């Protein structure tokens, strides 16, 4: 828009300048015509003066004026190339001037020959033939034409100047308007930005407090769950003691009853008293006794299993409440100690354990011991049958975290079970090894409490790699301060 306006005003200013040039041109043409007329008059008056006085001064003046006429004509000719009407006029004027100049020359000739009468007569003839008048009227016509052109052109020039001026005015007005609009826009966007900034700051503060709140809620919920698990598992034990106790009592009672039955049925009446225990049961009674024992056996083994599960939960909640004591741990010595404590199992499973360079960390020794011994124990436990085991323990550091990997060439874990193996009481794969499904759940809980993460990558029959990421320097305040 501004470009259009400035281009327009440049164009208009050029136009105005052109127009003024034409005005100047017209004035110049007029000027030249006047000069020409003046020269002719001077020539005429010089000639007359010379005629009357025979003075050399007049003669010189006349000659000079005559000499000046053709260049003046020439100039006018050059200036009026653009105007046909003026050219026609000029041609006529030139012819008239040539005639007059010829007359001048004749007059001078006569005078030189000492015949002033003849030149006088010529002067009169010239006057009679109106040569001078013709010149005057032609010049007047040309001047009139130029006057007309002058008026036209000055009107033109005025108009284009006015246009240019108004264009410039509009342009300036627009510039000012645009400037005002942009100032307003800039201020508005600045205000909007300030508002947004304020809102963002508020939101940030809110977010922080929300996060704090949520964290506190979560912590409370977590504590609640721990207490709950503790109380539940604890209180579940009481009835279990009774069930187990009275089941055992029943078992004793059952033995007594069946002994009694044996005694009643097996001993012939009237015979000598025999030890009841020695009397074998027969037929259906024996079957009953066996059924009775079987039922009690299932009850007892279920109770034992339930007790193990409850103990596991109790241990987990107890672990969850233990305060960690961070200390500097030389990872290699530490892992070697664990490996040597598992050396017997490893030898039995024909497994070789390689320890690669490990980063030292600051953490809770007991927790780390449980984490690594569980994982290494698992690696030994779940090797492929008939394949010599190869277990590697690797370590590296990254961005303040130590990453440990326990890699084996064992039976591997189906990817669909990768989540499940970390759940409490859940196991995966062939169930040919004793276990409660607690180890990995426990390990993961510990890793989390130590501010780390753990993951597994494994394929069936292609070994497993458990990766543990722990902060290199675990700070007790991380968690203890939270409590």
């Amino acid at each position, binding site marked *: 828009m501004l470009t259009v306006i400035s281009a327009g005003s440049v164009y208009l200013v050029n136009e105005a300048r052109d127009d003024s040039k034409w005005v100047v041109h017209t004035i110049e043409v007029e000027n030249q015509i006047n000069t020409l007329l003046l020269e002719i008059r001077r020539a005429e008056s010089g000639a007359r003066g010379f005629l009357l006085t025979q003075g050399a001064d007049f003669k010189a003046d006349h000659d000079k004026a005559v000499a000046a006429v053709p260049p003046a004509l020439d100039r006018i000719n050059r200036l009026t190339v653009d105007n046909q009407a003026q050219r026609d006029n000029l041609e006529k004027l030139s012819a008239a001037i040539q005639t007059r100049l010829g007359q001048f020359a004749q007059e001078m000739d006569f005078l030189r020959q000492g015949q002033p009468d003849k030149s006088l007569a010529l002067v009169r003839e010239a006057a009679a033939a109106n040569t001078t008048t013709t010149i005057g009227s032609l010049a007047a016509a040309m001047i009139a034409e130029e006057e007309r052109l002058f008026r036209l052109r000055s009107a033109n020039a005025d108009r284009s100047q006015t246009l240019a001026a108004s264009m410039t005015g509009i342009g300036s007005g627009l510039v000012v308007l645009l400037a005002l609009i942009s100032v307003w826009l800039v201020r508005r966007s600045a205000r909007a930005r300030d508002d947004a900034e304020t809102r963002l700051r508020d939101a940030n503060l809110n977010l922080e407090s929300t996060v704090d709140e949520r964290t506190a809620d979560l912590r409370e919920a977590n504590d609640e769950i721990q207490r709950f698990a503790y109380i539940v598992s604890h209180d579940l034990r009481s009835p279990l*003691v009774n069930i*187990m106790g009275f089941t*055992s009592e029943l078992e004793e009672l059952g033995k007594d009853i069946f002994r009694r039955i044996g005694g009643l049925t097996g001993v012939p009446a009237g015979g000598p008293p025999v030890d009841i225990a020695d009397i074998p049961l027969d037929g259906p009674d024996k079957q009953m006794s066996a059924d009775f024992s079987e039922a009690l056996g299932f009850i007892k083994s279920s109770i034992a299993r339930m007790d193990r599960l409850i103990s596991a939960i109790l241990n987990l909640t107890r672990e969850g409440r233990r305060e960690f004591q961070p200390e500097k741990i030389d990872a290699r010595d530490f892992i070697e100690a664990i490996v040597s404590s598992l050396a017997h199992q490893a030898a039995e499973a024909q497994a070789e354990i390689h320890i690669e360079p490990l980063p030292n960390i600051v953490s809770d020794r007991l927790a780390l011991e449980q984490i690594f011994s569980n994982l290494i124990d698992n690696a030994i436990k779940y090797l492929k049958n008939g394949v010599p085991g190869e277990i590697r323990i690797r370590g590296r550091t990254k961005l303040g975290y130590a990453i440990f990997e326990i890699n084996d060439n064992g039976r591997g874990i189906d990817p669909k079970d990768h989540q499940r193996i970390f759940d409490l009481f859940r196991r995966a794969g062939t169930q040919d090894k004793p276990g409660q499904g607690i180890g990995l759940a426990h390990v993961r809980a510990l890793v989390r409490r130590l501010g780390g993460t753990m993951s597994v990558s494994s394929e069936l029959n292609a070994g497993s790699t458990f990766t543990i990421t722990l902060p290199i320097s675990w700070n007790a305040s991380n968690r203890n301060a939270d409590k």
Partner: protein
Amino acid sequence: MTLPVTIIMIEDDEGHARLIERNIRRSGVNNEIVSFTNGTDAMMHLFGADGSGLVQKGNALLILLDLNLPDMSGIDILKQIKENKYLKASPVVVLTTTDDSQEIKRCYELGCNVYITKPVNYENFANAIRQLGLFFSVIQVPPAAS
């Protein structure tokens, strides 16, 4: 002559109480056993209406105490027994399901004489009680201070 020792059993679970009693009897201990299923009644019996413990003056007592009681904590009862001048000489056997080492330590600090965890494995439980019975039969329980 020594006064016969009375066994005070404070146990909210009647099944446990019955099992304990049976096993004590099996081990040949025939002392009188007084059972309470809540803390309030037991406290009333031990300390009397005035709470001074004077009612038990001169009696020889052996206290079996469960820590999880419906109305109060067994730890509190233990503490009050050991702080009472008439009762503090009476042996206290804590019998509970908790095997939390912190709690065991706490009980010993408060003056408990024996701490027994009730195992779910009945054989172990029965053994523990029977041994306790043997223990009862050989220990000399002093009468409450006169």
